[in-house]
């Protein structure tokens, strides 16, 4: 079995044993009903006490064959409203970038916690979309409103 596969099975095992409160993460099922460990869906709850707290935001993680040498590609839905998320939904985060801070020992748990942290503490120095970035830097009232509206679209109770 490949290193990628062993690691993903262990990630799944560890996640099932314990994971941070309010999160979910699971591999998708292929058409024939079998688990596809290389693509996962997960939910990132907004941190309590922030304007993101009402929502749980879905992400999709695609693990390349070279994982864990290379990081997974992680995406929110298209047009997700956040200064560091590209219009395609791809998240701009240093720990998810092979040329920056990705290390093979970073676990799924660390990734999802990192993304949760990013939600309310965007990095204004690496804009990935114009809409949210402009509001965040120039018109904070509009930004806050749009974030709260978006939270209602991804309510915690499913």
């Amino acid at each position, binding site marked *: 079995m490949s290193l990628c596969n062993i690691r993903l099975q*262990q990630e799944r095992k560890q996640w099932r044993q314990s994971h941070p409160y309010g999160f979910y993460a699971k591999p998708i099922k292929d058409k024939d009903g079998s688990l596809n460990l290389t693509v996962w869906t997960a939910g990132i709850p907004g941190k309590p006490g922030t304007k993101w707290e009402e929502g749980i935001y879905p992400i999709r993680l695609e693990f390349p064959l070279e994982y864990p040498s290379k990081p997974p590609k992680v995406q929110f839905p298209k047009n997700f409203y956040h200064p560091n998320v590209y219009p395609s939904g791809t998240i701009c985060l240093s720990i998810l970038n092979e040329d920056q801070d990705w290390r093979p020992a970073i676990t799924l748990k660390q990734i999802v916690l990192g993304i949760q942290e990013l939600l309310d503490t965007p990095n204004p120095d690496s804009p990935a979309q114009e809409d949210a970035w402009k509001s965040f830097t120039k018109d904070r009232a509009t930004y806050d409103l749009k974030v709260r509206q978006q939270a209602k679209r991804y309510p915690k109770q499913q």
Partner: protein
Amino acid sequence: MSESEYLPSKLSLPTYVPLQRTLVKEYESLFQLRTTQNLLQQQKKQITEHCDNYINFVLDNDKLDFDENILTNCLNTFENLVESNNEIEKLKSIQDHPDIKKFASREENDCKLETLDSFHNITNDQFPDIIKQKHTDALVQADFDFHKFLKNVLFVIKKPEDQLIEEEEDDGLAISGGKVSLKDPLTLDYYREPYKSLKCNHIFEKSSILANLRPNQIKQCPIEACDSSLSINDLVLDKLMVIRIRSFKRMERKDDADIEAVV
């Protein structure tokens, strides 16, 4: 003048008393150390090999447990040999001390009534401090490493998941209580062949670090925020981790058996 007629001015014993002629030989023979030290060295080597063989034998035979007594005996024997060797090193350095050389080479008369006065005139030489000091720096690096390894083995066979208690930290505080992960950070599965980086002490499963690191390649350590750059040459088998895994699995199996016995 007969002996009985002569009386020295002081009849008390002089502060300096010469070595009796018959004892001189014995005194010198004490310094015939080479043979003894060779023997000690051989024994030290033997016990080290014996211990290594024992550990490897147990690791190779899945049904065996480590015997604490055997390992403790090895450790004690080794410590005694080191102690003896230290004593010899100490004797050697005493022998080479200039003050001691002066003592040993002094041509003297026997201490008799006739010569007593002259002995009183000899100023009492001070024994050099070297005699009182404990000689400790004879432990060579290899001995030091073996001793530490053996102590660590004795620790991990009882507590395979616990962090070693570091003897002296810089601030003098002993650190303890932490747990050690027995899982490869790359596969998140238990180690089978754990290899340790000599640069940063991070441990990886052989197959997974080799998949990450090609020969002649130098890459950042896979652990987040670690600044070391690793090549294959920086990796060595971590025997202590092998023993941890082995003891952990044995304990787990024993626990399972106990539960079955109760049920």
